[in-house]
């Protein structure tokens, strides 16, 4: 399997794939329902370098609690409604490793609007 390399939140960029990352969950927003009946939750997650929103579907978001420490493997990042957002993929996995005992920083918030990220997205789209 080889050793997994982890990305820090501060290094996330639009279009980045195969992201392995560890984070602690800070906030979980109320779920929104998609047309086909799925529940989507936007969660603010953080490591010691910053924070970002992750979008979680159905039972994954439901099982999550603030203070949970998780490992996401093979996730990807993209811009959604102007905010850089982290996603889990069908190739990867998200696993709860613990609770509480992880340091975090709420700044910078990588999901804050960032014109540079928007530019990167348009480039990705035209590739």
């Amino acid at each position, binding site marked *: 399997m080889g050793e997994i390399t982890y990305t820090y939140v501060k290094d996330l960029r639009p279009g980045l794939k195969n992201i392995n990352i560890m984070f602690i969950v800070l906030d979980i927003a109320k779920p929104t329902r998609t047309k086909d009946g799925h529940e989507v939750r936007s969660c603010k997650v953080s490591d010691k370098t910053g924070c970002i929103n992750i*979008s979680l579907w159905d*039972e*994954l978001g439901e*099982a999550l609690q*603030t*203070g949970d420490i998780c490992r996401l493997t093979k996730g990807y990042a*993209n811009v959604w409604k102007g905010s850089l957002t982290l996603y889990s993929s069908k190739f990867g996995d998200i696993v*709860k490793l613990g609770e*509480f*005992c992880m340091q975090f920083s709420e700044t910078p918030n990588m999901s804050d609007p960032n014109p540079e990220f928007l530019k990167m997205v348009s480039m990705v789209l035209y590739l």
Partner: protein
Amino acid sequence: MAKPESGIKKHAPSRLSSLSVLETRDELEEKLDKCYKCVTNLLNGLSEREANDALNAYISKGAGQHEEVQLGLLFSILVDSKTAVKCYRDMTLTSRDGLNIVLLKTNTIIYEKWLRLADSVRTQILWLIRELIKNNVPGADSVCFILLRQISGGDISTKNVYLCESTVDMFYENKSWLEKQTGLIPSVVYTFLRVMIDHNLPSLATVRQKETDLCILLLREKFVECMVIGRDLVRLLQNVSRIPEFEKLWFDLMKNPTAISPQFTGLLQLFQIRTSRKYLVSRLTPDMENKLVFLITKVKFGQQKRYQDWFQRQYLSTPESQTLRCDLIRYICAVFHPSNELLCSDIIPRWAVIGWLLTTCTSPVALSIAKLALFYDWYFFEPEKDSIMNIEPAILVMYHSMRPHPAITATLLDFIARTYNNFCPMLMNQVKQGIKLSLQTIVNKRVLPSLSPLFDNSKLDKELRMLLQETFPEFCSVEVKDEVNKLEPIDVDNSNGENHLDNNSSEIPDARFSDDEDDIPIGRLGNDVKFQPIRDMPCYQHVDISENIQQLAGDIKDLTVELQSER
């Protein structure tokens, strides 16, 4: 929007724990499961005699195989109660290390995984411990000690009460074994004396009676063993003193100590023993301890809000959980003593955590025992034997709260001034000396350069300042003496050398506490600290307590009603 892509892999189901979709089996279970499969393969289709031969033949190949068989049988006991009797027998018969591997692994499972263990596995662990006790296996006491730590204070959930009751039953049924476990006895007593106060609902009367019987039995017959706990034994006994069996014990403790044990000379003897950390630690579950220690060693001052909220959500959110605050406070004061390096860092100081624990307490009764817990090492403080670090948090939480939250400071000052006279009338002089030695040591060691900013502060109301002036004249400055009605201090103790105290008023950092400054946090106190003042201040207000009286029971209720009607 992105397509829904689940991201859940099918994880192998756990037989030990109930896991959410986010959790996987850990290495420990993977290993146990592998051993279990190996044993199952080995024994598949064999008769009992053949099975025994097969196990022995396999074990003789080496230590690794021995461990594999032992752990495989252990796992079988835990996950399949039908096999338990047979597997326990095989385990004992094939063990070549006095069950050492099994005991160690059982301890790890209880210590690290108890919270998540499936109910059926918990039941099997209790069954296994009973077998270990019944068979007098050396090391069974250490498993019991670790199990006791999983009994959670302030938690009357079915699971926790079930654990209390099963454990009490187990000890009671194995009295003669327990009485030989001198190291375990004080832990048993300390645990059940503590959780007994949580079991005050009528529905929990049976559990409480069992706990009472066990504690009384051990205290009456093994008091010398229990004395190693130290002064916190008295603290817990105070909380249960209204239970008839303990009322009788209290009578003997005070009036007839030798009836309890010829080596027991009286309460003072107990009060003078600094509580061993072992017992204070034991009242936090490993998970609570991990989280609390993370908070006070890793979280920067100003960034504690979310951690405190998480801790509160898990452990302090119900009415019955309020009693846990005193265990946490005792742990912070008497167990966790930060290094100088940590003291100089930007990590949240102990007093701020205590401030949080006091200000978020929702029950006046629990708040009162929490305050007592905070000051408990003051009353019989001896500079040579006790540590300044035990008394430091109380003085600092009073000092640092003065400006942002004077109500906290006031309620604590009021408490220490009142307990100065009332904590233990029998030992009044010793208590007075203990408190004064505490204050003197605080000044001598320059925890605070002077107590005047605390005792003479105009933020405190006049009555409280007069009370402080009366109680601690030598720690108040001259100016304020003139300001308030001067009362002759009662000379309570001539022998403790208080008169040698220097007047430190010249060192008062008065700029910090002068009246014209705005009400802003002082010194290291960050803006993020959200102290909420306690609503019920200890000033004399008429309050209708009729409703609260209904929550009392027995003599105390009758006496309170009587008192109330006197007014």
